[in-house]
């Protein structure tokens, strides 16, 4: 406790999950999950706008069905993505995505939000929880992402942190973070696989644990595969049966759609503990018994999709399954027996289910935060980049510069020149992915090398440096080789926000925060003034009788003034008017009280 108390500027670890989020902190060398403001360990990653004001957590989750039109969840599936490439990933999400180029937007209550802004609301809630729990301001954090997140998704996560008022010191891969918590006691060494199936994402990482070094050998995954998909499969069965029975299209009705997904999730959780359970859609009076075997039947083809990534990761690490000393399961869905069986079948051994599947990632993030704070000098994470990085060349082909599973940080350099005389700019299209054709890979950004001195074609030589930092995020710089002069680069992220956009949002956020405080002041002032106003109203008839005419007039005038202020929007004015009325009625109140006492004694 004493150590934590002496900390001035703590760094917390945050697991920003598809379904649930957590914040953790290392106190005296021991990582622990910090309680949410709702008094729980988990903060459901759900946001609901009640009368325009955002709620986050269980309060928001309880409105999923009741107010489906103003409630969103699984934001992580949308982070760093565009409308077009979301057609599959957003399938079965009961909210409205707006078509358009670049980053996708969601319409809630007539306003368009980016997934970054919405994720920032969750991060802000975690920040507040940590501040309450640690009793000090929290400005810095380590945030985890799926290992298989691409550059856009990582950038989006970092931008969300900034919007929430957090300096994201490090983006850490979830399975890597989990391994830190798993290997905390140092007794666990050797080669391990972390099989991390979350709400919406799947990662497999192969690591070597050696004397406090956590070295990732290879990682693979699927950023659109998780427990959500099991819920959707169950919900589809109920939807089909409801269609048959009642003729309703359950997925066309936001509220019913949300109810179906919620009922499916509840069923899935129940079946992780029992052999049979009931799927209940209360609003339609629909009930259906489900056997565990039935769920397993549904789940198997979905889970089978984890096999390919696991085998590829093993191959990239140059290992056979029997060389692993442990297979660690992480993520809520790994509580299901059928998931454990799938992992066992892929790796040919019983998996290790000893770590807390919901909490281990946040605990690992807190350990990494402790490392960055300089408190833990024994541990070190060595990670890799999950996807190859390349640039577009002639004929729409990709020229790969950095191979997947390269250790990070890493640098690649490429020299560019001009094709036309007096050309002053060169466009560079940066891509991420393993494929040959540009359109099969993911567009990360377009850069323009500008301000090249006009020269004959092929003469300028501009060296571009592609640096992937320890966060797995790309940084690009360029210099003219002859002069050594740094070159200007304009960045246009394909599915992200430009720095200017983030700045604008931050500014708007501050304005909104100011507006929020003003509004809060007004509400509080009104609440305080209301009883004063009502009491005065009752005593007004006595004023003419008990007070000299000038004083009675003063009370009336002050009463009118407060009524007027209450109709306005200025909390300060309400307070002043209330104070003035209170002072004006002090004598009257005393006289009325005296009269009441006299009457009471006279009667006796």
């Amino acid at each position, binding site marked *: 406790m004493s150590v934590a108390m002496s900390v001035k500027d703590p760094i917390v670890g945050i697991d920003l999950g598809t379904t649930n989020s957590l914040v953790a902190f290392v106190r005296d060398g021991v990582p622990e999950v910090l309680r949410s403001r709702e008094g729980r360990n988990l903060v459901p990653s759900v946001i609901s706008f009640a009368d325009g004001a955002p709620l986050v957590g269980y309060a928001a989750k309880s409105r999923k069905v009741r107010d489906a039109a103003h409630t969103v969840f699984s934001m992580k599936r949308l982070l760093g993505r565009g409308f077009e490439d979301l057609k599959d990933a957003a399938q079965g999400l009961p909210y409205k995505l707006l078509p358009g180029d670049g980053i996708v937007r969601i319409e809630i209550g007539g306003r368009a939000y980016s997934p970054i802004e919405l994720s920032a609301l969750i991060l802000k809630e975690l920040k507040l929880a940590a501040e309450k729990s640690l009793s000090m301001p929290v400005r810095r954090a380590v945030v985890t992402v799926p290992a298989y997140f691409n550059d856009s998704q990582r950038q989006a996560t970092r931008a969300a942190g900034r919007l929430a008022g957090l300096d994201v*010191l*490090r983006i850490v891969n979830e399975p890597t973070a989990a391994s830190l918590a798993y290997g905390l006691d140092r007794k666990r060494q050797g080669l391990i696989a972390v099989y991390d199936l979350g709400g919406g994402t799947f990662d497999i990482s192969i690591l070597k644990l*050696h*004397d406090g*070094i956590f*070295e990732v050998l290879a990682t693979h995954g699927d950023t659109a595969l998780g427990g959500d998909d099991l819920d959707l499969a169950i919900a589809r069965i109920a939807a089909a049966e409801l269609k048959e029975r009642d003729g309703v299209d359950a997925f066309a009705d936001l509220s019913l759609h949300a109810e179906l997904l919620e009922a499916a999730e509840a069923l899935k959780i129940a079946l992780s503990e029992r052999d049979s359970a009931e799927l209940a859609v209360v609003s339609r009076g629909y009930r259906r018994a489900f056997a565990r075997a039935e769920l397993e039947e549904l789940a198997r083809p979905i889970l089978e999709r984890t096999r390919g990534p696991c085998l590829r990761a093993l191959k990239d690490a140059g290992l056979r399954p029997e060389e692993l000393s442990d297979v660690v399961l992480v993520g809520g869905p790994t509580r299901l027996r059928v998931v454990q069986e799938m992992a066992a079948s892929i790796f040919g051994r019983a998996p290790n289910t000893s770590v807390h599947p919901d909490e281990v990632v946040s605990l690992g993030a807190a350990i*990494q935060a402790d*490392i*960055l*704070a*300089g408190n833990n*000098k024994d541990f*070190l*994470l*060595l990670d890799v980049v999950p996807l190859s990085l390349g640039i577009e060349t002639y004929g729409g082909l990709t020229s790969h510069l950095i191979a997947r599973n*390269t*250790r*990070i*940080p*890493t*640098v690649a350099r490429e020299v560019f020149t001009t094709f036309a005389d007096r050309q002053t700019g060169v466009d560079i299209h940066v891509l991420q992915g393993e494929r040959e054709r540009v359109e099969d890979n993911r567009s990360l950004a377009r850069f323009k090398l500008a301000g090249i001195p006009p020269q004959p074609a092929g003469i300028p030589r501009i060296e571009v440096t592609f*640096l992937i*930092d*320890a966060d797995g995020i790309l940084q690009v710089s360029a210099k003219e080789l002859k002069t050594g002069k740094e070159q200007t680069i304009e960045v246009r992220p394909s599915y992200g926000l430009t720095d200017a956009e983030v700045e604008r949002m931050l500014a708007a956020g501050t304005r909104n925060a100011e507006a929020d405080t003003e509004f809060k002041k007004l509400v509080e002032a009104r609440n305080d003034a209301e009883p004063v106003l009502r009491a005065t109203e009752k005593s007004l008839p006595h004023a003419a009788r008990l007070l000299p005419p000038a004083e009675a007039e003063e009370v009336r005038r002050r009463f009118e003034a407060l009524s007027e202020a209450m109709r306005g929007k200025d909390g300060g004015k309400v307070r002043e008017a209330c104070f003035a009325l209170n002072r004006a009625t002090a004598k009257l109140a005393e006289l009325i009280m005296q009269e009441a006492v006299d009457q009471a004694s006279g009667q006796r």
Partner: protein
Amino acid sequence: MAFGGEADFLARHVCARCGSPRALEPAEDYFTAFAVPRRFVQDRAELERRFYQASRALHPDRFGAASVEARKASVERMSLLNDAYGTLRDPEALREYLLRLEGVEPPKAGIPEDLAESWFELQDTLGESPELARTRLEVFETELQLVKSRLESVIRTLEGQSDREGLPREVLEKLARQSQARNYLRSLERDLERIRGKLCR
């Protein structure tokens, strides 16, 4: 002793007194990064030990609160160390890197003579008889494996000779030719994979 002293090795990367990472110099290469001699055969266990040791001293996670220059040097040095480690522990990548470093240009490679005939025979039968093609595919694969293991043994011998004799030019050039031939086999193997896929469908 083949390897320089421990303190020597770390002092290349970080200041022995204050621990801050040194700025990268243009003359540094993958071998100097690990303080190992320019050789084709490296001790992988020793490389790993040095990689972990240098990572502990150099990784950007150790310099979160340091100056901008120190952070930049840490990222650049760690990048060099990462790339060097990836290359030195992979015999083929190491071979290509060392040949390039010694200024030996990779020669053009074609199909090895002793494989050419059966390769063209295989090509001929592809469009005509799948039955015959499958048989010839198997024959070709056997021949390819033989040539491959012969090439690899020649490469190992040349690498050993080169390491012992201090990288003489003519040995390096011979090695480059054999190495290119070995690379060519790899592209042949990929072609075979495709052919097998077609025949089995």
